[in-house]
């Protein structure tokens, strides 16, 4: 038995073990689930060690004399002070940096890359039926989320239209979700039938 076939058989065993949950909860399912969690954690630690700590901190610091990297290095170490209650407050320095940095990037990103282009293109196509449907959809959906006034009369009617648009979008998302889940099953079936059992080429 070749190593490749052994690897494929192990993968097939775990695939079947995980699908066995559809019949009922069992030890094979639990075994596969726990092994997956453990391997993922181990793999992630190894990857971060190699691609972040070694490549982006240790080697540039030691070989290229990029001493400014000591600052993010210290900030990273400070995160571990959370495990020592007396000095755990120090980790807030690192967290403050992360929160501030993320907020700054996200603010620009959302405004410049999401909200403005979306708003601009909503009103581009007023002359077509699609454009009108889009404007009605956007405005009525936004009004549905306006909660400072009771949804009665004209406001209630527009909010009701908004609910219809939201429901249609949920329907589209559900349809796509079904396709996604079926695709995953097809992928596993292809793996079992092609790579493992060699029934199909």
């Amino acid at each position, binding site marked *: 038995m070749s190593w490749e076939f052994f690897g494929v058989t192990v993968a097939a065993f775990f695939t079947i073990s995980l699908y066995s949950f559809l019949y009922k909860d069992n030890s094979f399912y639990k075994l596969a689930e726990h092994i997956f969690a453990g391997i993922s954690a181990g793999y992630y630690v190894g990857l971060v060690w190699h691609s972040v700590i070694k490549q982006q901190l240790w080697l540039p610091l030691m070989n290229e004399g990029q001493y400014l990297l000591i600052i993010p290095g210290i900030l990273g170490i400070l995160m571990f002070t959370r495990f020592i209650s007396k000095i755990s407050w120090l980790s807030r320095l690192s967290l403050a940096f992360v929160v501030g940095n993320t907020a700054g990037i996200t603010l620009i990103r959302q405004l410049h890359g999401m909200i403005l282009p979306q708003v601009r293109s909503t009103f581009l196509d007023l002359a077509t039926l699609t454009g009108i449907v889009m404007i009605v959809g956007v405005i009525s959906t936004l009004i549905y989320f306006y909660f400072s006034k009771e949804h009665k009369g004209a406001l209630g009617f527009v909010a009701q239209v908004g609910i219809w648009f939201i429901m249609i979008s949920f329907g589209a998302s559900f349809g796509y979700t079904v*396709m996604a889940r079926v695709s995953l099953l097809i992928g596993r079936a292809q793996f079992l*039938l092609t790579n493992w059992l060699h029934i199909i080429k």
Partner: protein
Amino acid sequence: MNSFFKIFAQLKDIDRRYIFLLIGIAVILPLIFPLGLPLGVTQPSKSLYEKVESLKEGSVVLLTFDYYPSTLPETEPMSYAALRHLFRKNIKVITVTTIPLGALSVMESVVKNVAREYDKKYGVDYVNLGYKYGYQAVLLGMGRKIEDIFPMDAYSNKLESLTLMQQVKNYNDIDFIFIVSDNATVDYWISLVNAQFGTPMGAGVTAIMAPKCYSYLQTNQMVGLLGGMKGAAEYEKLSSNPGKAMRGMDPQSIVHFLIIFFVILGNLGYFVTLKKEGV
């Protein structure tokens, strides 16, 4: 009439494992005995294909592998189809991932397989940058200088030692970004890279993400979109490169028919039962 109510009452209490079994059969049989059901091509897939088709020989494309192994049936065929199309057109390819778990191995395997098929040389025709932690910083940093973010490629070669990377310094030197993603990174590529650097891009995403990503087509932030296995199959068809996605479309269609049948049956049973109970 009573027997009619009885059938629906029995169906209501059916063990769901029978439905799982039927779905399983509906997936396996068409894989073994393909039916060759027709496959239409949607405009977003066609637009993406045409954009790649319009790129000149020697152009540089950044191909991302931003997905976890759990979505391989949808995303991997997109990567294969895209890379084959790019290499066939003699376009230089830089691959990268912002996903830590598994994407690196998948990327390496796809790139190596397709490079071998088209006899492409590493460092000259393609470069694999690998993975780097912190996608926001990575995406923004690559706009200034790729080498700052990736001093070394996935195989620990210095970037400056690779011929292709000597001419590609940042997004200004990249003609197109082909994103293959199963998560929110596609939003970051759009809102950070396209919005700030203006690099044209298109994406292949999982079916779950597709409805959200359609809004980027309307804003022209993306030139085209592949949605799920269907999108991958469409790209395979357009690039005359049938693969796993096209093969998966027969079971996909049959299972959808089955699910629609179950939805109708379930709702019919629900209303019939309500009527019987006089609600």
